[in-house]
Each structure stands twice: as C-alpha cells, then as structure tokens.
C-alpha cells in the first residue's frame, strides 16, 4: 500500500491520523498544528497577560511535560512575555514520585525554567507513605487530593505567583464530565469543563491550556518531539470509578474518535444550562442540595486520579464531612469568582476580550472568606480542609506507632 501523503504540505509521508477530524499529517505539520491549536485556545480565552508569572504544575508525566514544552515554544514564538516556572509537588511516595521528580529536574534544565518542589512533609508533617501507613490504602486519594490542591496554591504563593497551569487534557475533561453525569452531580460540570477555575479558598487561579488536546495527540507530540517524560501509575491509586470512566472513553474513541471532544462540548453546554446556585426552578429542591456545593478536593490536579470517590464507606464518610463543611461557603460556581478578580485590580491590563466563561456569570453572593485558625491558610471554615484531615491523622499517629 502506497504511503499516504500529508494533506497539508502534500510532500511528506503522513504519520499521524488526527482523532478529531481524521486528517492525515506528517510529523512537521502535526507539530505545527498542535502548537497552533494550543495557541488558539490560549488567545481565544485570554488566558494570560503580558509579563504574567505562571507556574506549570509539573509531575514529570506526559501531559505536564508537553504543556511545559509547548508553553515555552509559544511564549517565544508569539512573545507572550510570560515568566514560566515549574512547580512540582512531592507527595512523599517512594518508588513513584521520587522517580518522576528526577524527570522534572531534567525538564527544568532542558527548558531552562526554574523549578520549585514543595513536599507534603514540609507543609503538613506527613508524607503520603506515612498517611497510607496510618489509614490504609482506602481513601488515601482524598487526603492526597486536598493536600495537593493546597500545596500547589502554597507553592505558587511562595513563588509570588497567582496562576497555575495544569496538564489536564480533553480525555481528562471528558472523563470528569462522565463521572459527574454518572454521579448525578451536574453542579460540578462547570468546574470540570471551565478552562479557568479558581477556588474560594485561594486567590491562585488555575487553568488548563490543553483542555481541547487529545491524549493521543499529546502522547504523539511527546513521541515525535522526543520529549523526556516519565510514565507510571501511582502505587496507591485504586482509581475504580475514574478507571471505568476512562475505559469507557477510550472504548468510545476507538469507534468514534470525535466522541471525546463531543463529550467535552456537551459538558460545557450542560454546565451552562445548570441553574447554578441562584434560585432554583424547583422550590422543593432549593434548600437540600448538597450536590450543588462544589467541593475543593475535586480539582486535585496533576495525577488525574483526583479521588477514588467510589471506594468504601470510610471514604464516603470523609467526603460527606468535607462537603458539610463546604456548605458554609454557599457553593458558588467558583470559576466566575476568579475571572472577575483580575478585572478589579488596577495593576493588571484587562484582557482585550471578555473571557468566554464569564458569559454565564452568576451574581456573587456572600462569600465568607476567613483564614484557618490553625494554619492561617484561607478557608471559609474555622479549620481548612487540610487541617481537618491532619487533625484526624495526628490523633491516630501515636496509636499506630506503638
């Protein structure tokens, strides 16, 4: 069979078949188009402003490695004027994170970016290895997720940075959309699908510039650009529910490759239709809606195994507890909160175009932002989530160690 030629340059042999439109591309044209599309995503959602300092949540895995490489390329090519820094979290998992951190250290040298590593041990006095030793494997993802979210925030604060980008891709977003659908949790769709998210417990914003990039293309980009990345699965992650959603997404992709972006778009559309936290159409449901409360642990970032939510009663109890605490925060669509923030500040240039996400802005109601009375971290309750979890852990510690 004669090799197919690239449909763009019509000279080189096609090596890639794009999942979203079946286009056959050669290596050079594929790399160019992949980068152009990420650039388009960045520009059309006004993700950055000139001179902005941005931390790249870097795990050493394919997604964050590709993100760092593409952002470096685009920053130079299109003169974004960004100051890029790699920010890595060391959960303290031997045989997993220590290896991938070596990859991040090489990436820092390869991309000529400063690297900051923040460890759970220095932040919380516990490594994940110790947490698992204490509570067992069940439910440990909840701890890891809550700790990581704060760790990324605190890491960026240490660096004086207010924007963290993560390597979440279209497959991750589609997976999360499906999980939220399967849990009947439409309120979380907004967080899952928005390109920019924030948190009412933090003034650090998060964004996912690769949210429209197929995992397949990310892997191919890394392969053809010969990027140095590390692949492993967290040794503690059961991933039962997310794993099933992932298998479903990948199986759908085999039969209908466009399905992944279609699910992402459906998620975005549905998120827009969710009445949010304003007066619900159905009065009978207006009060008892724990599902409407966007809890923080959802956006763990980084490992893509944010929480094995379906696991065991212990985990469910913990999540319920966290959710109860979050109720106080009135559960707004947190996206809008942070998107509005930059506009208020005089020292930041306004984006030329309104970010898309603000089109579904809901009025911001009372936001009780205080600080955790134990660690001083921003929190809407007396204790922040991390301190709550730590309290439980510290109580257990002596018993376990005897």
């Amino acid at each position, binding site marked *: 069979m004669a090799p197919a030629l690239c449909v763009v340059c019509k000279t080189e042999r096609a090596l890639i078949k794009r999942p979203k439109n079946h286009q056959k591309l050669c290596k050079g044209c594929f790399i160019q188009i992949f980068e152009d599309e990420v650039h388009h995503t960045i520009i059309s959602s006004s993700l950055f402003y000139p001179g902005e300092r941005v931390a790249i949540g870097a795990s050493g895995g*394919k997604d964050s490695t590709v993100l760092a490489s593409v952002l470096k390329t685009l920053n130079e090519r299109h003169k974004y004027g960004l100051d890029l820094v790699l920010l890595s979290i060391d959960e303290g998992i031997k045989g997993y994170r220590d290896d991938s951190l070596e990859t991040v250290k090489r990436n820092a040298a390869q991309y000529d970016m400063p690297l900051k590593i923040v460890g759970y041990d220095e932040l919380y006095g516990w490594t994940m290895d110790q947490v698992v030793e204490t509570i067992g494997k069940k439910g440990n993802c909840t701890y890891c997720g809550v700790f990581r979210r704060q760790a990324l925030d605190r890491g960026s604060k240490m660096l004086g940075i207010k924007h963290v980008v993560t390597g979440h891709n279209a497959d991750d977003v589609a997976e999360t959309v499906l999980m939220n659908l399967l849990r009947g949790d439409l309120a979380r769709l907004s967080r899952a699908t928005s390109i920019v998210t924030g948190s009412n417990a933090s003034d650090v914003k998060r964004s996912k510039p690769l949210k429209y990039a197929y*995992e397949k293309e990310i892997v191919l980009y890394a392969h053809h650009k010969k990027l140095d990345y590390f692949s492993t699965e967290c040794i503690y992650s059961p991933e039962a529910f997310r794993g099933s959603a992932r298998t479903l997404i990948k199986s759908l*992709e085999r039969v209908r490759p466009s399905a992944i972006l279609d699910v992402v778009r459906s998620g975005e559309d549905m998120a827009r239709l969710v009445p949010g936290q304003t007066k619900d159409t159905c009065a009978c449901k207006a009060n008892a809606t724990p599902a409407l409360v966007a809890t923080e642990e959802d956006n763990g970032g980084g490992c893509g195994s944010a929480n094995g939510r379906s696991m065991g009663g212990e985990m469910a109890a913990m999540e319920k507890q966290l959710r109860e605490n979050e109720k106080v925060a009135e559960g707004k669509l947190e996206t809008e909160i942070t998107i509005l923030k930059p506009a208020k500040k005089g020292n930041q240039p306004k984006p030329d175009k309104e970010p898309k996400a603000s089109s579904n802005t809901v009025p911001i109601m009372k936001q009780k932002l205080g600080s955790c009375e134990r660690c001083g971290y921003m929190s809407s309750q007396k204790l922040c989530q991390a301190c709550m979890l730590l309290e439980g852990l510290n109580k257990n510690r002596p018993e376990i160690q005897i």
Partner: protein
Amino acid sequence: MAAETEAASPEVANLPIVVEFSGGLEMLFSDQRRHALSIPVTTSEGKPATVASLIDYLCRNTMKDTRKELFVLDDHLRPGILVLINDADWELEGEEAYEIQSGDNILFVSTLHGG
C-alpha cells in the same frame, strides 16, 4: 540463535523485527523497552503474520506479567494503547490487518498512565 537454525526450513522462516513498549507498558514486558524478536512469517493457520498475530505472539511468548488484560481486552489491543508502525500511526497502515515486514519497528505506547 535458535531462530536461525529453524529458519533453514522455508516453512518456518522468521521475520526479524523490533518491538518497543513505552508509556508504562514496559512494566508488562520485563521492564524492557526494546525487544529484538524473530517471529514466524506465517501464523499457525498459514496466513501471513499481521499486527493481530503479533499481539497474540507477544502475549504468549514475550509477556511475563500475568495481567494480560492491561494489554489485550476482548481479544483486541486494549483501547488507549497507540501503535506506531515504523513511526506511523497504525490507523494509517490498516491497524490489526497490517502484514508485518522484515525489519519493521513496531512501537506500543500506552496513553493510559498518569504522571
């Protein structure tokens, strides 16, 4: 090599190929990325060796790990694993039906693993 002595008979000729595993699949194949293999030119049914028969061959002969389901699901390659035949997406080459040629480089990359 044992393969070469057998190759004396034309019926059991072998194809020298290189098979590589990455993206986390190495762990199923003795933590080794690159495997230089010599596979039979024809399958037991006398048909030319294809990617499908190679996958079967790898499961029977090369994989030491017992978790075959991480590589094969329902008799097909597990969705989420990419195949590059001489650096080209196997979707451009006929996928499982591609007939393997001497000297081919076949790379299996998992997209399923996180960071």
